């Protein structure tokens, strides 16, 4: 498996300059799902932002170009001005195909869901739609910030299974931030994880 991201001896500070993470090293390979865990405020999202914006380029080597990286941030706002349907949201991806959506979403979305309105869909339906939109982009690296937010246990399992199948089929790397409470779910699906607490600046 080829390495898509190599992070070596990375130190990250808060915007105010105080140290957050020190000497962090890891690598991400194609076909791998890697979870980053840790308690609130430890710097998980800050780390993702640093990786995405390539702000510490001497300590990280990307072997994929930026346009091959897809990012799912945490939701800042649940509602949208236009009354979009879930189908509208998915059709932002060029490869969206109404007939094949069940296969292409790896079981996350059913055709019957597509006419539902975004603004009245449940949190779980919205999250699965957003994850599917990312899968449809067929990027080489998926970077997901708290993808389990708003999902019940059964949906969390479906998302992990979908990511597994997607990573294996597309030889795509998945880097996701998640909470410690999902440790069992990660272990059950043999997902490697990094606990940021070990790297937190004291």
């Amino acid at each position, binding site marked *: 498996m080829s390495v898509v991201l190599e992070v070596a001896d990375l130190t990250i500070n808060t915007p105010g300059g105080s140290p957050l993470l020190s000497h962090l090293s890891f690598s991400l390979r194609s076909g791998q799902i890697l979870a980053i865990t840790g308690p609130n405020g430890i710097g998980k*999202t800050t780390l993702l*932002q640093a990786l*995405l*914006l390539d702000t510490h380029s001497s300590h990280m080597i990307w072997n994929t170009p930026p346009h091959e990286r897809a*990012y799912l*941030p*945490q*939701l*800042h*706002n*649940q*509602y*949208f*001005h*236009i*009354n*979009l*349907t879930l*189908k*509208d*949201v998915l*059709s*932002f991806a060029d490869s969206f195909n109404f007939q094949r959506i069940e296969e292409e979403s790896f079981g996350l979305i059913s055709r019957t869901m597509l*006419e539902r*309105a975004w603004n009245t869909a449940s949190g779980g339906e919205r999250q699965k739609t957003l994850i599917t939109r990312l899968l449809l982009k067929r990027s080489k690296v998926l970077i997901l*910030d708290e993808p389990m937010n708003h999902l019940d246990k059964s949906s969390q399992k479906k998302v992990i299974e979908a990511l597994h199948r997607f990573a294996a089929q597309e030889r795509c790397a998945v880097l996701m931030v998640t909470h410690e409470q999902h440790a069992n779910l990660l272990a059950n699906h043999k997902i490697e994880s990094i606990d940021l607490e070990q790297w937190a600046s004291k």
Partner: protein
Amino acid sequence: MIELIQLYKWSILASTLLSMGLALLGIHLASRDRAMQTICVGQGAMLGVLLGIGVLQYLELHGILEQILPLTTALLTSIATFALSQSYLNRGLASANSHFGSLFAILLALAYLCSTLFPALESHMAQRYFGDVATISDAESMMIGVLGLGSIVCMSFFYKRFAEQSFDQALYGGLSLPDRSLLRLFELTVLLCLSLSVQTVGYLFTLACLFIPTTLSARHLKGGMKLHTIFCVILAPLATLLGFILSLGLSRLPTVPTIITIMVVVGWILVQILKHRRLEGG
């Protein structure tokens, strides 16, 4: 009546095209929750227009400068207002709308101050605020017609990508990583349209075409992106056309308020027709 329409044919065509271009831009500005910022940038453009006209009158300049100077100053002040207001958003200030509100009050005060420094500006100020589509010159008609058409082409060509960017900005705020070149293209189109539109057809017409169609649709229609866009691109030019012609026929009616009244009435009728015929799912 036919003679009047013949006389104003270029103004009618240009303002109709501009209204459609503004309505398309308004969909994305509203989606990105940028209405208050847009009102400030429009007021910044207004200040630039007044400064430009004031300088023209003070220095007694004529000819091509009469068109170019107010547009240039409007563009400069709208860019400065945009940069300042964008810094509020980039700094992640809580309650950005309150900051935009105070910025608007300052710009309004500066515009009034400008009109007292150049006394002949008072009538211009009223005209730039409330507008009159019937008084635009042929040269202005050509400029806004081209700009309106350019905006329609740009917004239609990148329709899906602009929509996705608006969606991401609304949902993810500062955490989204937008395609920078597409974002700059959108911002440039908005600044150009606002500056020229405020200078020629006025602030009121500009804001009405930007926000009335998209808010009517968002409030009443549930048919998705396609229906929303179609509603906006039909309503704004139809209301402009009908309102303009009605105000030509009834000379006591001012053009812009008539257009806006027609926009609300026709918008409401269109909403009722669409609801009644259950076309929303289309």
